[in-house]
């Protein structure tokens, strides 16, 4: 059993597990933090961004000034944003049999894998994962494609050149592997390879391995996976949550008795309490609006936004915000809001009960009906007519590098009345804001990450008792910024095995048994002998049939007639290939009786 680690990002994992005769890819997350090194893509030409000075190197050379721009002491690449792909050289990805997706955030690299590596297998994911994953990809492609950028910078990627650059560009890893965004046809092709699965559905892979998705409690349709044969069980835990938000709660019991538990996707903000953050979010929002400012919430079009809207639904009347317009701008805003209402089976119990009434499970249906929440595909068209300030806008992308959020950052950045509230934990808010500096706008950081924290992890591990734990190396030491917090790491016995990007781990597990079926006819012919009380033995000589990794024992064919003619010279004819084997002898010998018999 081997684990190939293709991603260095602990919450956007991409691992390949070789187990028995199968090659299984676990998630294919796309590391988008690389986009933070790029200049934002404004929908309308931004005079400020176009006037940024080009980079002058320490030695005074200016050959990079077209590609790299400086803004408030940071250097940015002036090009179409690029993403850091999972490792593609560590093993031949065309040999991957199946890809298991745990949640819609962890499938963003799928088109790169399925369309560029010769992949011919199947992808398994739940229906909400696929539908919302498609929305995320659509939004991503849309917001990058609608701002065609003439130039694509590549000189700076040259190793010799990169060495000369200031940090963080100098230290950026694998820049040669960075790729531009995929296209919609590629997304569609990738998604067409997905087969839908439901929680606790047992899926046979080549008869050798069985995989099962389990509810992980983090997002709509998010799953952990059990990969097992008759004797071995590997649990893949990725992006799980024990908090009660909208998704179905996490299924912990089924993770018990694992030989190996691969643990990824823990909270990125272990010190923040999501409930407290939501409270802070609401109060900051209210305060800004009351003072006549606008609130910008950079977010993904699905996920935490449903919870935020639900909180606001309960909060706006009491906070006197009922007249403030809430806008949700995304090419997939409408689809996301509609889809959230039809996945009753994937929701928590409270929401399911509402559907049984029948009522929409999420209150944003009511917000839309009462015109408190309006959604638009983009800032063009209807939105420009309806736009009223002060207002609250939810829009993407949380990296602040593309999408309509860029427009509002430019528009509102100069006024200290306005506030931008960061709720998505995927990007460092300081880095995200860097190309907009200097900024008068208020910035509030309320990261809401409902994934497991370290206390919950140690409780979980105590509960499910895996023999071995495997996790990204980041989880085996305290975060670099808080090196004294030894509580912010995984603590278990035996200590977890850790992996880093481009590493291959041999998992400590040895298989000893395999399942085989004895056909009823053969079973009838067996002669068991009780050797010790309760223990019987039977000698088995049978034909072994192996098909689709399933082994079956059948009655051997009748031995051919023993040769009567001694003239035949070919010994191999005389001694048939399938000669029955004489059993080993054991037991006590009744000597007297034996001798008596001989005497006769």
């Amino acid at each position: 059993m081997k684990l190939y680690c293709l991603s260095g990002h602990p919450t956007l994992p991409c691992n390949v597990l070789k187990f028995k005769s199968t090659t299984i890819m676990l998630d294919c997350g796309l590391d988008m933090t690389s986009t933070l090194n790029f200049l934002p893509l404004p929908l309308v030409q931004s005079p400020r961004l176009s006037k940024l000075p080009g980079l002058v190197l320490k030695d005074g050379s200016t050959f990079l000034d077209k590609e790299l721009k400086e803004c408030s002491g940071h250097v940015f690449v002036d090009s179409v944003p690029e993403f850091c792909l999972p490792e593609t050289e560590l093993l031949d990805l065309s040999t991957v049999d199946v890809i298991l997706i745990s949640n819609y955030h962890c499938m963003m690299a799928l088109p790169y894998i399925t369309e560029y590596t010769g992949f011919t297998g199947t992808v398994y994911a739940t229906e909400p994962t696929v539908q919302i994953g498609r929305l995320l990809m659509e939004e991503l492609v849309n917001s990058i494609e609608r701002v065609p950028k003439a130039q694509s910078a590549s000189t700076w990627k040259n190793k010799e050149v990169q060495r000369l650059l200031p940090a963080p560009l100098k230290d950026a890893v694998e820049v040669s592997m960075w790729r531009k965004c995929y296209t919609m046809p590629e997304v569609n092709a990738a998604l067409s390879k997905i087969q839908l699965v439901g929680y606790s559905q047992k899926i046979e892979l080549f008869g050798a391995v069985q995989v099962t998705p389990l509810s992980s409690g983090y997002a709509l349709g998010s799953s952990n996976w059990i990969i097992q044969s008759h004797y071995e069980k590997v649990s893949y835990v990725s992006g799980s949550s024990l908090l009660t938000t909208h998704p179905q709660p996490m299924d912990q019991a089924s993770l018990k008795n694992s030989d190996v538990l691969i643990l990824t996707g823990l909270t990125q903000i272990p010190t923040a309490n999501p409930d407290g953050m939501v409270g802070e979010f609401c109060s900051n929002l209210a305060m800004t609006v009351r003072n006549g400012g606008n609130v910008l919430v950079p977010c993904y079009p699905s996920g935490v936004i449903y919870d935020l809207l639900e909180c606001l639904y309960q909060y706006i009347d009491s906070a006197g915000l009922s007249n403030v317009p809430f806008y949700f701008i995304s090419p997939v805003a409408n689809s996301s809001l509609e889809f959230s209402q039809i996945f009753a089976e994937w929701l928590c119990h409270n929401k399911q009960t509402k559907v049984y009434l029948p009522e929409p499970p999420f209150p944003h249906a009511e917000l839309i009906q009462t015109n408190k929440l309006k959604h638009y595909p983009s800032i063009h068209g209807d939105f420009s007519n309806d736009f009223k300030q002060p207002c609250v806008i939810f829009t993407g992308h949380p990296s602040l590098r593309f999408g309509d959020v860029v427009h509002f950052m430019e528009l509102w950045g100069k006024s200290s009345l306005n506030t931008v509230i960061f709720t998505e934990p995927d990007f460092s808010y300081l880095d995200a804001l860097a190309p907009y500096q200097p900024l008068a706008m208020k910035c509030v950081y309320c990261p809401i990450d409902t994934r497991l924290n370290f206390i919950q992890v140690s409780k979980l591990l105590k509960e499910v008792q895996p023999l071995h734990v495997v996790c990204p190396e980041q989880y085996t030491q305290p975060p670099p910024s808080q090196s004294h917090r030894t509580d912010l790491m995984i603590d278990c016995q035996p200590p977890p095995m850790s992996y880093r990007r481009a590493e291959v781990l041999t998992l400590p597990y040895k298989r000893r048994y395999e399942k085989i079926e004895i056909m009823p006819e053969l079973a009838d012919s067996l002669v068991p002998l009780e050797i010790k009380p309760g223990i019987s033995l039977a000698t088995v000589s049978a034909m072994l049939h192996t098909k689709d990794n399933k082994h079956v024992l059948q009655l051997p064919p009748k031995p051919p007639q023993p040769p009567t003619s001694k003239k035949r010279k070919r010994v191999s004819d005389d001694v048939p290939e399938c000669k029955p084997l004489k059993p080993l002898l054991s037991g006590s010998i009744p000597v007297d009786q034996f001798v008596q018999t001989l005497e006769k």
Partner: protein
Amino acid sequence: MGSRQFLFLKGKKEKFFCFAEGFEEVKRAVRTRQSNLLCNVFILSVSCSHFHLDHCGALPYFSEMVGYDGPIYMTHPTKAICPILLEDYRKITVDKKGETNFFTSQMIKDCMKKVVAVHLHQTVQVDEELEIKAYYAGHVLGAAMFQIKVGCESVVYTGDYNMTPDRHLGAAWIDKCRPDLLITESTYATTIRDSKRCRERDFLKKVHETVERGGKVLIPVFALGRAQELCILLETFWERMNLKAPIYFSTGLTEKANHYYKLFITWTNQKIRKTFVQRNMFEFKHIKAFDRAFADNPGPMVVFATPGMLHAGQSLQIFRKWAGNEKNMVIMPGYCVQGTVGHKILSGQRKLEMEGRQILEVKMQVEYMSFSAHADAKGIMQLIRQAEPRNVLLVHGEAKKMEFLKQKIEQEFHVNCYMPANGETTTIFTNPSIPVDISLGLLKRETAIGLLPDAKKPKLMHGTLIMKDNSFRLVSPEQALKELGLAEHQLRFTCRVHIQDPRKEHETVLRVYNHLKGVLKDYSVQHLPDGSITVESILIQATAHSEDQGTKVLLVSWTYQDEELGSYLTSLLKKGLPQSTS
């Protein structure tokens, strides 16, 4: 249309599995001889295939009045809709008909609390042996077929299903799960219904003609199921033809029902699912809620009204109002039970006796159109082809038609097909293989032997099966002995073969060696430095005869395990050596 009840016995331990069915039938069953079986100990689980009352009507009675307290399984839509229909059923039976020995509203609520909702394809472990799995069945929203598995034996119960996708639902589907028994409904055992499109065109034509000539169309329906399909059909037709006549559906259930369809849109067919964001097919533009007063409005209209068999309620009221006018039409889209007004008019009766001895003369046109979504003969065969069962059991339907289908199934699939009468017990024998643990060492050794180019070719393997407290392990004989702490005995056979050969001993040995090497090409024949020969594990030594130097004695010794080769060798040597050429 399922109105029977099944119990079966399976597995190592006795297990009963019950498919909840109609109220009256279960009640009868409880009263009669099966009652002793219906105690909690035996029934492990109940699964409810869909929300039609003939499939779930007895649930509260069963769980709250008989005392069943095990789990009940349903899909989410069934769980959502079922209590509403039950409550409706209760109201009609208790409040209108005055039945007393019936379940209460509270019982419905308590019963629903015991329901476990299942996903499609989810494997539910009921206990350590029994697992169930639901498959999509088409028929109505949330309808499911259930697979029940105990060890390696399995049964599939279809409930009602539909193998052709319709305007709002997809087709039933099952994987090649090869159950030991497939229990399928056979309501339309011999019918191969004319194509869906024809029926739809026919329906639209009739409605259109009636409306054109200013008549009113009454379509008695059950609240959920066909109603939605016909609504979609009329809605799209109205839009295409730009018709203005109003369409209504009767209040209450149907309106609410459409809401269920909107929220459970993932259970509908692919087309509706794909387009629901742009246009939700269950948000009707042309179809409005019905008000009692509308029935007397002049001019044409189309009304969907419940219930479907014209036996009570709004549909019957409207029917009475409109029956006298030959311009009007009633379209019965489904089957009607004997004794109902629907059944009477379908069988041609035109003078009906209503309560109060009133005679109602039916002048309006009466049309019957089968839209009920059951699998027809073709569909049943298709399902059997998909699932590849070892036995088939037919339920529901007329015996003659079932007999025909039974023959067809036996002919085409060469499997046993049963059609037990009500109350009859069918015993089906299965012959399951026995799963055993094989040590990987043995398996690998056996597959490695010979390393034939064709690795898939069956090979002979030898091992010892250890049976200990219900566990079966197949290991190599050596390992078995070691594990059990048994000493191995060596049984050797020794045989002397006399050979006339005047030469010296070592030369004789050499001749024997060359001879054997020539004959036994596939075996390892070795000449050891101490002067002996080995063929595999068989030892051959030569000594001069103590009395006759011209006779050499060959001592052949082999173990019990090599008996065949050993005796073959002796007989070979007894024939003497070939004349030496040297």
